[in-house]
């Protein structure tokens, strides 16, 4: 089904498991080497930075390639064959390049494959919207994208394509539901499908025969949870409603209250459930969505100006972190504060970037005479907040 060899993917899984075990000091360096030799994998997955650089180069190369091809087609009379056909030709060309590169170099999340996959999807969208027959119905677009993304996910074992397929599926469900049922059932429909997807992906994630797709299913599960939340978020409901149904807004008190409760409760449920299941991915997702909920509330009911909210929010986060560290250190709750196998180095770099961005020290006025709030330099204050 996929264009990689099964052994390559399986051996990569074994190597990763062994590397983690080595990091956790369970197995020795010698054993890790033994395993890597016994389970060789030809897949090319570089370091993240290299992958990003390769990806950027591929973006530029791909754009130039498309420019080259379209110039070629233009000289051949693009107006005669139509924009959509040109996009389809480019998409097909991208696909064949990708297939050839994967076959010869075994790129697997190596930057090149990720960018070219996205390129195919973009070509598909352009082809759909670039016809001479006006805008196609949303359901058709979603259906075509669902087929393309699912096929690409299956063929290149790519998690991002899997996630796009989920988005396409939910869009399809939404577009069909929009024709068949009253608006207030639409969120419910999307929620039901999200939960079903979450369940299904959860079943497949455990399956040994689908080991290669494990990461895809993990991502799909998290995305399904995000979609479940999004389908009931008050802001999303209001915006989508206003867009789809002119005159929308009088949702009624009860319905509005239901969506508010949903907006606040779901992230909290995720956090609590994640803590109980010891699934940190779900806890982090819950916290991120909680932040989204805070912004949702702020959008409608601004209790205090942003900088004051930052002060109180920062104090709250500090307090919670302090209490939790104390609690976890007691070791009673099945969690530990000792270092795990996580990627501490990457986290440090991310923290350093965050620090520079947020505490952004404003540059000095070069003539050294200008006055003004935070630009006094070193104030750590952002005068143009």
């Amino acid at each position, binding site marked *: 089904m996929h264009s990689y060899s099964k052994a390559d993917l399986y051996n990569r899984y074994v190597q990763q498991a*062994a590397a983690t075990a080595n990091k956790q000091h*369970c197995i020795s360096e010698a054993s890790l080497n033994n395993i890597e030799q016994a389970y060789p994998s030809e897949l090319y997955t570089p370091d993240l930075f290299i992958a990003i*650089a390769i990806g950027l180069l591929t973006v530029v190369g791909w754009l130039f390639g498309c420019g080259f091809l379209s110039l070629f087609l233009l000289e051949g009379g693009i107006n005669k064959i139509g924009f959509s056909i040109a996009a389809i030709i480019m998409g097909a060309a991208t696909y064949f390049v990708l297939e050839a590169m994967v076959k010869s170099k075994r790129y697997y999340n190596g930057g090149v494959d990720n960018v070219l996959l996205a390129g195919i999807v973009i070509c598909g969208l352009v082809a759909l919207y670039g016809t001479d027959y006006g805008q196609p119905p949303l359901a058709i677009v979603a259906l075509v994208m669902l087929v393309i993304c699912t096929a690409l996910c299956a063929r290149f074992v790519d998690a991002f394509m899997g996630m796009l397929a989920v988005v396409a599926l939910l869009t399809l469900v939404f577009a069909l539901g929009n024709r068949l049922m009253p608006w207030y059932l639409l969120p419910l429909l999307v929620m039901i499908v999200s939960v079903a997807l979450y369940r299904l992906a959860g079943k497949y994630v455990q399956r040994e025969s689908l080991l290669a797709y494990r990461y895809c299913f993990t991502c799909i599960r998290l995305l399904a949870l995000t979609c479940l939340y999004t389908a009931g978020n008050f802001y999303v409901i209001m915006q989508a409603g206003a867009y789809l149904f002119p005159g929308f807004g009088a949702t009624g008190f009860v319905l509005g209250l239901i969506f508010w409760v949903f907006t606040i409760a779901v992230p909290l449920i995720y956090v609590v459930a994640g803590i109980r299941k010891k699934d940190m991915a779900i806890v982090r997702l819950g916290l991120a969505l909680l932040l989204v909920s805070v912004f949702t509330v702020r959008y409608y009911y601004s209790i205090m100006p942003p900088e004051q909210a930052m002060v109180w929010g920062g104090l709250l986060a500090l307090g919670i972190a302090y209490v939790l560290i104390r609690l976890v250190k007691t070791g009673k709750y099945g969690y*530990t504060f*000792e270092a795990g196998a996580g990627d501490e180095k990457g986290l440090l770099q991310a923290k350093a970037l965050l620090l*520079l961005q947020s505490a952004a020290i404003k540059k000095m006025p070069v003539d050294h005479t200008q006055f003004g709030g935070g630009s006094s*330099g070193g104030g750590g*204050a952002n005068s143009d907040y």
Partner: protein
Amino acid sequence: MLYNLFSKLQQQGLITPDELDNVAVQQQRPLSVRNDLLTLLYAGIVVLCTGLGIVVYQNIDSIGHMAIIAFIAITCTACYVWCFKKASGYSQAKVQSPNTGFDYVILFGSLLLLIWVGYMQFVYHVFGERWGLAGFVPMVLLFATAYYFDHAGVLSLGISNLAAWLGITVAPLSVVSGNDFGNERLIYTAVLLGAFLVGIAAFSFYKNVKKHFYKVYLNFGTHLFFIGAVTAMFVFHDAYFLWFVLIAAAAAACLKYAVAANSYYYFAVTIAYSYAAAMYAGIALLALMPNEVGVIYLGLLYGISLSVLLTWLLIHYNKKFKAHA
């Protein structure tokens, strides 16, 4: 599932029975939430200080306002006093933190110090009209804090303060938009400061003065230098070839360093800047040719082949790294 895998590996004689037991024990171990909690702590500090940095400039002269200033001053002092008590003193070598919270308290204290000094200058003109001094003093304090308590995060704050003092903002998201690179003086400043920081990095490394800090200096220095030099190519178009040669020389040195230090990061960064420079140089050459469709084709082909070439270079050397590691 994981245990089954490792028992299979054990049957194949790839790992010892003891190691299999280790894996089984590891499965039962409590889950580590260290990184998550420290990130929360960190986010709390950064958000709180960003908020405070804005709040202090509002409602000046109100009573609540004075309370905030007092809070900042007291907390800042408390942070520093606590750190001086806990710290084991200055050393040329790397100093281990006495406990987990230490690094975070220093960071908190330094950020509060920045806010406090900035506020003092704004309201009381402590440094008079000499705004240069108002940037210089906190910078020195930050560097002193970073070196005394051995804190790479505060060091990067100090360096960005140094850049700010010279008129450059180094916030990652606004390094391009926030700086007026049409200003010729700024370009020279960026290039020279970049080179200077790389020099400091070399000094730290070879003279063993806080050797581990060299990475922080090198990171800032490389980016500042390349951003300045690539911009210079665009701005000083007449002399672009000179700048191109300079960039090429610097890139060669960087690649050499990246291979020697086994650093994927520097390799990728150098290739990215080189691409921008090479692309500009190539297009500048093509612009000299007669204006025909053929030239556009040539330009597109150049773009494609440059990407392919640099991608090949990345992959080729990436494999070399792995052989080294």
